[in-house]
């Protein structure tokens, strides 16, 4: 029996996945605190408890995400790029492109037939297209970020948001509210703007079908829908898109044991 764990320390949430012989035995998602070392340990413990596995039985741990460098007990540190690729390859080996929209960064990853990273591209400094952008906009609109997906799907059309600079876009959103545009339409407009940005990144890297999406924003059906419209293809979203990075990390830990 091989037991390995993957920890994904993102800017907003920390994810832990424990796998036993290639099957997920436990997984948790927690809010990231300031003390990432502590949160990493707590997340790992929680996932192990869920799986009913003791610490001493763990054969390998891989840490990923922004906080990966601050996990002293991890055996390896791997970037989220390789981890998301590995996680998706495990679920759907035929997937050629992974889109991951996280809190800080969004990325488009191209996989080769063996699930290895062939190329990747990440968001530009000035561009909005991240979870953080949506969060800032949700605050301007006084809605809960989790509700945005459902709200936007109810809108018949999207308000046009032209600027993609966070500051410009925020002022545009405020103007739209002042003009009396329904909030749902504004949110749909924001989703379309994010989707356009990410679709542009995907084109830069030369995306191919099939496409899968991971990361917290993948839970927002509004963004996924807009992205599908922009790319003109269906996008696969795993049941728990947030944990794919951690899953990939756990799988990489297992790979290194072979």
């Amino acid at each position: 029996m091989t037991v390995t764990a993957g920890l994904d320390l993102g800017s907003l949430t920390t994810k832990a996945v424990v796998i036993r012989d290639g099957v997920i035995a436990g997984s948790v998602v927690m809010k990231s605190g300031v003390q990432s070392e502590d949160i990493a340990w707590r997340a790992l413990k929680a996932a192990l408890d869920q799986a009913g596995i003791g610490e001493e039985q763990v054969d390998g741990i891989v840490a990923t995400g922004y906080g990966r460098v601050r996990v002293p007990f991890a055996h390896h540190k791997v970037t989220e790029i390789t981890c998301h690729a590995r996680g998706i390859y495990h679920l759907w080996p035929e997937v050629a492109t992974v889109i991951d929209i996280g809190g800080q960064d969004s990325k488009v990853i191209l996989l080769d037939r063996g699930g290895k990273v062939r190329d990747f591209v990440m968001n530009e400094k000035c561009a909005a297209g991240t979870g953080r952008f949506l969060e800032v906009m949700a605050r301007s609109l006084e809605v809960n970020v989790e509700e945005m997906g459902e709200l936007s799907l109810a809108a018949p059309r999207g308000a046009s948001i032209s600027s993609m600079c966070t500051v410009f876009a925020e002022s545009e959103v405020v103007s739209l509210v002042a003009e009396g545009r329904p909030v749902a339409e504004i949110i749909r407009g924001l989703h379309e703007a994010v989707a356009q940005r990410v679709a542009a990144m995907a084109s830069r890297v030369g995306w191919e079908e099939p496409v899968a999406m991971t990361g917290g924003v993948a839970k927002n059906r509004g963004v996924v829908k807009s992205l599908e419209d922009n790319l003109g293809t269906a996008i696969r979203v795993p049941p728990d898109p947030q944990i794919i990075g951690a899953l990939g990390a756990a799988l990489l830990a297992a790979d290194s044991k072979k």
Partner: protein
Amino acid sequence: MDIYQLIRFHLAGPLRRRAFKSPWAYRLLKQLVAAQKKRYSWQAAYELLLNTIDQVAAAYLQQGPVVWHNVFFPTEILYGLGLVPFAPEAAAAVAVGLGVAEEAFRVAEGDWVSGESCSFHRLAYGCDRAGYLPPPGAVVCSSHLCDAAPQSLAAAAGYHHVPFYLLDVPHRQDAAAINYVARQLKSITFSLADALGVPWDQERFQEALLASNTAREHLLAVNRLRRQRPACIRGDEAHGFIYLMLAGFGSEAAAAVYRQLAAELEQRWREQRRAVPEERARLLWLHLRPYYPTEIFNLLEQEAGAVVVFEEMHHVYWEPLDPARPFYSLAGKVLSHHGLGCMSRRIEAILAMVDAYQVDGVIHFAHWGCRQSTAGLRLLQDALRDREIPFLNLEGDCVDKSKYAPGATRTRLEGFLEMLRAV
């Protein structure tokens, strides 16, 4: 507010400004550097530093007419006239290390030079207005490769009420273009001599061209040595010599430094002294790098064994100069730059470097606000993809450290390294 902070606040600026104008400061600095000669792993770097201090001193102590120039202007002309060249863009890179950057950025921003523009020029602008730079007697600038340099230098000339000479560089390389550039170079040369009251000395002018040719020969030797496996110099160490490409051609010092560097490289190659214990990958570096401490090179070279074996900025793109036809051959040099004209020209040059230096991957440092190097990258990316050469566009800022995001940089670099290993 703390009284000591207040004192420092009021005194630090004027003190530093005064220090630049004191011959003692330079003598002291040189002594400090000389005392540590043994600690320089490359004697060429030690010589480069001493020469640079001399050059900076000459400008601040006004040992001759000071002429500001951008880094693409053919400096052979300035050395050939016996002037003191001073490059504000290079000064900006130095200012980062002297702790005046924050103040300078604030000055520039307060003067409407907004954050969207190139920070080299914003920083130089701020340093100048804050009184940190040696006032020019004249300003020269070429229009290649970027738009910010001519704008910013023209503004500086206006501010100091000194003449501004633009070298307008077209993108074609035909006879008409060479004639146009050569005639401008000639006119700028004699206008400078006239405006600054320096006598025309043909012999001195030709010597500058010969010195430029000698430096070119030694740099070519350096580059040949860098093609070999394993690499004997880390990119981190080699990068500093780019300074000469930007401000040194035409001086005897540049030739001497490159000669020294070639000799040291040759020796290390014979002794098989490797740049890193295990060379796992060879990288080509495009554009410049941050001039404040970052972990970029440490992570690549020391941690991962991915050595930067060549920099695009060290590429010798021009033919030797002909001292008998100085302006015509300098025009040829200017127009030979691979960054001019259609992007396909730069791509061709980069692909040739990929082959010559046997690189496994290419990193472009996308300096925020630099349009010339960054805007057309998609074409380069496509060309490298066709050749299956991994490419990373690493975004950041060469001189504004507030724009540096360590976590994001590490993720991108490590992701790139993982991809390299997978290839």
